[in-house]
């Protein structure tokens, strides 16, 4: 298990080995801006402040350029944390969707 911390939100969730950042946050009832959830649109990009990610599936250079990757941008629907990571959302706040159902 790796920890996914969301900067400025006081939120930390655990991600399974195969889980992406987006999958882990969704599973725990959180939402933020995402699009196709299949690596094609780039809507769910986040800034990776700390830690490493990898991509089990191909990510098109059209969607996430090498420059962006090197500059610490992660495509959160495809990026799997390799160890603990801290991310920052872009111009938005994390939403807690499950409300009273959340533990």
């Amino acid at each position, binding site marked *: 298990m790796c920890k996914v911390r969301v900067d400025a939100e006081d939120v930390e969730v655990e991600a399974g080995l195969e889980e992406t950042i987006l999958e882990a946050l969704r599973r725990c009832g959180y939402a933020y*801006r995402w*699009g*196709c*959830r*299949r*690596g*094609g649109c780039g*809507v769910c990009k986040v800034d990776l402040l700390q830690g490493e990610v990898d991509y089990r599936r191909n990510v098109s250079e059209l969607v996430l350029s090498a420059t962006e990757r090197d500059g610490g941008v992660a495509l959160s629907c495809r990026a799997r944390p390799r160890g603990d990571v801290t991310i920052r959302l872009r111009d938005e706040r994390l939403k807690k969707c499950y409300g009273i159902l959340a533990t």
Partner: protein
Amino acid sequence: MSVMRLGYVHVRVTDLEEAKSHYGNTMGLLEVANEGNKVFYKGWDEYDHHSVVLEEGGVGLVKLGYKVSESSDLDDIEIKATRFGATVERMAKGDNLSVGDGLRITLPSDHVVEIYHEIEYLGTETGRINPDPWPRFRRGVGAPRIDHALITVEEPALVERFFADVMSFMVSERVIVSNENPEVIGSWMYCAGTPHDIAFIKGPNGKLHHFAFALESWSDVLHAGDIFAMDDVPVDVGPTRHGITRGQTIYYFDPSGNRNEVFTGGYLTFPDFPSITWTADQLAKGIFYISRELNERFTSVLT
């Protein structure tokens, strides 16, 4: 006569195996050929060689193919497209697997449209002699055929004029800013008897919003939704109804993030169909009639 229908959609996919699982197992298209990094599919009710081409590498639209009824239509469209000022080149038989001579036109919006008259005939799955209404063994959604595509363009009025002047398409519905400001921000156009064979909304040039499969009924749309849940396909919106076209729909994403749609219903169009107008303040109702809400994805997710 002129353009008959949208004949093929050629898209890029990041991973060919995942895409094959989606278009083959989930959508139930039939794989008819493969060539290098491309795979060719058709729906069970389509008789031409293919209607969907997947090409590995990247995402988004490579090109759309429209089939004309006479080979002389190619000359006619070539003259009109050149006069319009679009970039036109002749394509040769074999440039596309099984497709004959034709035209390759680059729209003012940078999208590539191919016009062709000949393509190999394969026949439908149910045949032409005493056919059953559908093939006994369909996979997944079991999509019978493709229907239309929606692309984004910087100047909808210009692209609308291209399809009207060069391709002889007619406008079924149009979205304008307001009654006072008739700037076109979206246009739905037909060449056959359906509500649309192409549509465009204002946005970046060269991008695909979605392409659609036609289903037979509203219950088939619900059945498709069940299949999407079983196969964990991310659904964008639906099942719901469009105000524009009156069709019933689900939007969802293929494994590369290209948006697909299953579509049914909608009215009939004829050459004397009076165009319908929507004003931008009612756009959400025009797109998603029941919820009357546009989600952010609708305008931000393009490939």
